[in-house]
């Protein structure tokens, strides 16, 4: 029998030499100095595009021609989703569907497959979608390195739009993402270093190891804390379980006597961490959270010393917008860098909108969409 191979041209994961992520040199594996410096600089850039539509804005775009992808509508748009296993992704997914509904004239069919956080399933999903009659494929990869070959294979057949976690290849028409994890982590760390001062005690709460966007956050923060002489009393993983987070913080309070700051790579357990201070009868620390509803509410109610860097969920809208632009043959940036606003004491009230679910993300960019807020669970 004929032997055919679907191995992506050049092979998977490591087309040439070792990919960035392949050699685990302890600690620095996720640190890329150039990218780090670029992101920190990007924080100060002004984004192009409509200020009231941050999901349409872009930083330092290098536009690319897409005329060869232009086809007659209405289109069949496909989406391979890593999972909806956390509230961030849930809000994003809801927003994305709402965005699709805004374009029902152009999108006749929207097929989405959920890989349930399994790389292998997502590879098959992508193969299946590409094997169908999709006009464009949006991918939110589960793991950067391992999804690369599948995405590369897909690039040869349909225009591919990647957002959030990224892949190790340039073949997608555009890669959409906010400024990035280094910027997120650095912003939070700079704020805390300023609040607790040299020698101040900071506890770092992380979700889990191994997700690059999260690793970048800590990699940047770690450097800033070291440079500013902040005493990092612990780095713990919470797996986003509020009870675990609260227990960990209680233990540290007991051990350390007092803690001045809490740094988080993901704000989900922020309120639980603060409650540990309350239950121990301790003053609330300075804290860096995220744009999650319950954290913002707590912030407002308690008048926290806080800051919330964001990793906006509105990028899920951008992916659909970009797909349509590509199918229309309009130019898109080859790397679509979205702004990454930071919530602080001054602009808090501008972002906090009451009545949304506790795990809602404020930067969904969905406030003006039809069925808001009901569709987002209010």
């Amino acid at each position, binding site marked *: 029998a004929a032997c055919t191979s679907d191995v992506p041209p050049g092979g998977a994961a490591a087309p040439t030499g070792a990919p960035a992520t392949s050699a685990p040199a302890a600690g620095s594996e996720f640190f890329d100095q150039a990218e780090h410096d670029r992101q920190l600089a990007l924080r100060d850039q002004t984004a192009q595009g409509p200020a009231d539509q941050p999901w349409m804005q872009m930083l330092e775009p290098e536009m690319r021609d897409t005329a060869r992808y232009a086809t007659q509508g209405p289109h069949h748009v496909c989406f391979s989703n890593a999972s*909806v296993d*956390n*509230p961030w992704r*849930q*809000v994003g*997914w*809801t927003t994305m569907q709402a965005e699709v509904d805004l374009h029902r004239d152009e999108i006749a069919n929207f097929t989405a497959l959920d890989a349930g956080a399994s790389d292998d399933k997502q590879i098959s999903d992508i193969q299946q979608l590409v094997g169908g009659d999709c006009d464009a494929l949006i991918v939110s990869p589960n793991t950067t390195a391992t999804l690369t070959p599948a995405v590369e294979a897909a690039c040869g057949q349909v225009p591919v739009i990647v957002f959030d976690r990224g892949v190790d290849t340039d073949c997608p028409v555009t890669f959409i993402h906010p400024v990035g994890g280094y910027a997120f982590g650095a912003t939070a760390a700079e704020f805390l270093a300023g609040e607790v001062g040299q020698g101040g005690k900071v506890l770092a709460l992380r979700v889990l*190891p191994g997700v690059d966007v999260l690793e970048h956050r800590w990699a940047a923060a770690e450097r800033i804390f070291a440079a500013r002489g902040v005493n990092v009393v612990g*780095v*713990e*993983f919470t*797996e*986003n*379980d*509020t*009870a675990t*987070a*609260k*227990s*960990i913080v*209680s*233990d540290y309070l*007991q*051990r350390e006597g007092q803690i001045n700051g809490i740094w988080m790579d993901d704000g*989900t*357990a922020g*309120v*639980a961490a603060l*409650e540990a201070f309350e*239950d121990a009868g301790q003053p609330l620390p300075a804290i860096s959270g995220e744009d999650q509803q*319950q954290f913002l509410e707590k912030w407002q109610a308690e008048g926290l010393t806080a800051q919330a860097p964001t990793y906006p969920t509105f990028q899920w809208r951008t992916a659909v917008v970009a797909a349509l632009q590509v199918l229309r043959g309009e130019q898109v940036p080859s790397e679509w860098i979205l702004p990454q606003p930071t919530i602080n004491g001054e602009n808090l009230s501008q972002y906090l909108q009451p009545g949304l*679910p*506790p*795990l809602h993300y404020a930067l969904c960019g969905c406030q003006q969409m039809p069925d808001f807020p009901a569709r987002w*669970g209010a």
Partner: protein
Amino acid sequence: MRALLSRGGAVAPVFAVLLVLLVAIAVVNPNFIEPASLLAYLKRAAPLAILAVGQYFVIVSGEFDLSVGSLVTVQVVVAARLIDGDESATLPVIALLVALGLLIGLLNGLITTRLYVPSFVTTLGMLLVLSGAVFLWTGGAPRGSLSAAFRVPGRQGIEIPGFGQVPWSALILVAVAAGAVALMRSAWGHTLVATGDNDRATALAGVPVARVRTTAFVLSALAATLAAILLGGFAGVSAQVGEGLEFSAITAVVLGGVVLGGGRGSVLAALAGALVLEALFTLLNLLGVSGALESTVQGVIIIAAVAYAARRVGRTRRPPAVPDPSPQPA
């Protein structure tokens, strides 16, 4: 007390393990032996300990309950959505949670005993159904929020003059333990263990084994409900609260020397198994065993502790990994 803890003269090994761990914690952190610290430890251990008590009933009757973890999540998420910050809704919603727990336990029990589905499968299926259903209902992420009143049992305590604050969790745990011991000493308790040992013989002795086992599943689900109230109270809404709790609870029960397959072991030892697990986490934390290697240490210690417990029990009969309630129309 000794009589309570022992059987045939020998104190169950789990109590020795617990003592060693507590002493080790006290050595690393002398503050630990202060009443406040001990109470805090009990407070933290309470949800798992209560789950272990519930799981004990099921395991000693010869079954498994893998659905408790997802049931805990369901209960917390349901409570948040229904209460949605409304204080006055607290009690009615708690009543509803209890009813839901009752229903799930009943389903687990009836499917296992009436449809003869091995409980490992019943409750594995239930785990999938529950975790899927609750997020289907809430659209993927928890909604609403818990009331302050709902959070009292898990978060607060009662002020006892001259002693300080005693967490409600600790008191509830003591009550659950007392209730469980009383239940196991009743005729029902004896028939429950006999059912786990030989359900055919027990059925022929006039025991309605299907009902007895179903009751065990209901008790387990009610324990999960109580644990959910404490966990939700302790740390608020989360989609992850129940994750992995079924394995922790089963591990705790087995650490207590209770035999998977049924028919052997005491409820207090199962509860002590949960205290051992929690003490183990605390100690590893205190020793600063890095987050990552923690699992490895945990795995080794769990195997060692169970091996130690197994040394005392008869070696001749190796129970099956999964008991088989093979269809036995009684």
